[in-house]
C-alpha cells in the first residue's frame, strides 16, 4: 500500500467508488498537513514517514463504576492503510472505533484525525468530519421502518448528493452485496445477514476517506464474507483508510495488513504490515 502522494496518477479507480474520492481527499486535508508535520515531531511514533490518518496517543476510556474499556492505547494508522483490530469479546474494539469516529470522547489521551484533535471539534466541523467517516456499527443502527435503499441513501443525503447520483450508487452497492431483490424491503424484515450488508453499504456509500467497520461478517457465511471483503479492499485501493474490528480469523490471517490485538483494553500485540 502506498501513501497518497505516491499513487500513479493514471491509475484507474474501481467503478464502485466515486472517481473523485482521491481528489476530494486531497483537497480536504492538504491544508492540515503543514500543521500536522510540525506537531508530529514531538510524538512517540515518529518512525513512519507517511501521513497518519488516525493518531491515538495514550488514549484511555473509562465507563462509570470501574469499567476500564481502553487503557493507554497508542497507535498511528496511516492514510490509505487497511488495519485490523482483534481481541476477545469485551476487549475494547468497539470502544476504540467509537472514539475514532468521535461518537464518544476519551477519558484521557489525545486522538487526532488527519492531524486535527477530535476533542475540540464541534457543530458544523464535527458534522463535516463525520460525513467523511463511514461507520458500520456492530448493532447496525438501521432504521427498521425504512427500506434498504432509503437506509443506504441517508449517508449521501446528508452531504446533499443529487437524487439521481444517490439512486445509481444505491443500486450499484446493492448489486455488489447480492441484495438486488431487497431494494424496496424495509430493513426490519430483512435477515440479520442482509441487515449487516445494508449497514456496510451505508458506511461506504458516500465514498468516505475513512471507513470504520465493526465485526462486518459476524452474521455472514464464507461466500458472502468474501464478497464483503472484496468490496472493502476495492475501497481501500481507491484511497480510503479502513479500520476493521473483527474476531473472524479468515479475513485477517493471511492478509498483508497490520493487525492489532487488544486485551482487557490495552494493546497486546501489533503484528503484520508487510507492505508498509
Amino acid at each position, binding site marked *: 500500500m502506498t501513501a497518497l502522494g505516491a499513487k500513479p496518477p493514471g491509475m484507474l479507480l474501481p467503478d464502485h467508488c466515486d472517481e473523485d474520492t482521491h481528489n476530494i481527499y486531497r483537497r480536504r486535508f492538504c491544508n492540515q498537513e503543514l500543521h500536522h508535520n510540525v506537531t508530529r515531531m514531538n510524538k512517540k511514533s515518529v518512525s513512519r514517514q507517511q501521513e497518519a490518518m488516525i493518531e491515538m496517543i495514550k488514549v484511555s476510556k473509562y465507563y462509570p463504576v470501574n469499567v476500564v474499556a481502553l487503557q493507554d492505547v497508542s497507535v498511528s494508522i496511516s492514510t490509505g492503510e487497511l488495519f485490523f483490530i482483534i481481541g476477545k469479546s469485551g476487549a475494547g474494539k468497539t470502544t476504540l472505533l467509537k472514539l475514532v*469516529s468521535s*461518537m464518544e470522547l476519551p477519558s484521557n489521551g489525545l486522538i487526532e484525525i488527519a492531524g486535527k484533535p477530535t476533542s475540540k471539534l464541534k*457543530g*458544523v466541523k464535527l*458534522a*463535516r*468530519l*463525520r*460525513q*467523511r*467517516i463511514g*461507520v458500520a*456499527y456492530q448493532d447496525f*443502527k438501521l*432504521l427498521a*421502518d*425504512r427500506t434498504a435503499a432509503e437506509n443506504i441513501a*441517508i*449517508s449521501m*443525503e*446528508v*452531504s*446533499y448528493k*443529487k437524487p439521481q447520483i444517490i439512486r445509481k450508487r444505491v443500486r450499484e452497492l446493492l448489486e455488489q452485496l447480492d441484495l438486488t431483490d431487497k431494494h424496496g424491503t424495509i430493513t426490519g424484515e430483512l435477515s440479520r445477514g442482509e441487515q449487516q450488508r445494508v449497514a456496510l453499504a*451505508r458506511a461506504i456509500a*458516500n465514498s468516505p476517506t475513512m471507513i470504520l467497520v465493526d465485526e462486518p461478517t459476524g452474521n455472514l457465511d464464507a461466500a458472502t464474507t468474501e464478497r464483503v471483503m472484496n468490496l472493502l479492499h476495492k475501497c481501500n485501493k481507491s484511497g480510503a483508510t479502513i479500520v476493521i474490528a473483527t474476531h473472524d480469523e479468515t479475513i485477517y490471517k493471511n492478509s498483508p495488513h497490520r493487525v492489532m490485538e487488544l486485551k482487557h483494553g490495552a494493546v497486546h500485540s501489533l503484528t503484520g504490515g508487510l507492505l508498509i
Partner: protein
Amino acid sequence: MSFWFTVIRQVGRNLRQTWGSQLMTLFTVTLSVLIFAFFYLIYSNMLHFGDKLGDDLRLIVYLEEEPGPELQQQLRKKIEQFDQVESIRFVSRIDAYERFAEQLGDNRGVLDDMPKDFLPPSIEVIPLKTLSSLNQVKLFSSYLRKLAGATKVQYGQEWVERFYNFTRLISIIVALSGILLIMTTIFMVAYTIRLTILGRQDELELLKLVGATNNYIRTPFFLEGLLQGVLGSTFGIASLYILFQWIQNHFSGPGFLNMFEFSFFSPSVSLAIICVSVLLCTLGSYSTMHKFLRI
C-alpha cells in the same frame, strides 16, 4: 438551494411516514387552540355582559326639599366629586307626580283630588358603566346618602346585588376553568411533541452519526412545527367560529342573544391568536428537539 430541496423532501417524507403521530399532534394543537379561544371569547364577551347588566342601574336619591338651581349646581358638583357619572337628573315633586299618574294609567283619576306635591323630589343618578363592582355601587350609595338634604337612596338593591354576585361567580368559574384548561393544554402539547420526537430519536441519533449538520436535522422539525401551528390554530379558530354560528342560530330565541350581544373575535384578534400559536408550536418543537439532540 440543494439544502432546501433536501429539507423539503425530508419534510414530505416525514409527513408521509409518521402521519399517525403528526395527525395526533395536529389534533392536540387544534383542540388546544379551540379551548383557549373558547375561553378567551367568553371572557371578552363577559365584559359586555357587565355593561348590559349595568345599563339600567340608576340610584335615586330622595330629598327633603326641592333644591333651587344653585343647590342643584352644588349637589351636582358633590356627586361628581365621588366619581364621573353618566348623567344626573333632578326630579321635582311635580315630575314625580306626573310619573306616578302615568304609572297608574286608567286609574289616574283617583289622583285628581290630591295636591300635586305629595311625592318627594329626587335626584336620578346613572353611574358610569365602569362602575361594575357591587362594593363600588354600595359605596356610592352611602356617599349619596350623606348629601345634605338626602333622606333615602334607592337602587333596586336586591336585584342589583344578585346580579353582581352572579357575574362575580361566573367570572370565578370562567377563570378557574380557563386556568385548568390552559394547564391541560400546555401539558398536552408539550407531551405530544415530546413523544413525537422521542419516537424518532433513533433517526435523529443516526443522522448525527452520519454527519448531518444541526440545521439539516432541525429544519424539518422546525417546518413541521410551523405547519402544525398554522393548520392547528386555523382549524381551531375555524371550528370555534362554526360552533359560534351554530349557537347563534340555534339559541337566538326572541330577545335572547339580542340582549347579550355576542360577538366573535375581530379578524385581527383571530390572526393574533393564530400567530401566537404558530410561534408557540414552532418554538416548542424546536426547543424540545434542541434538548434531545444534545446526545
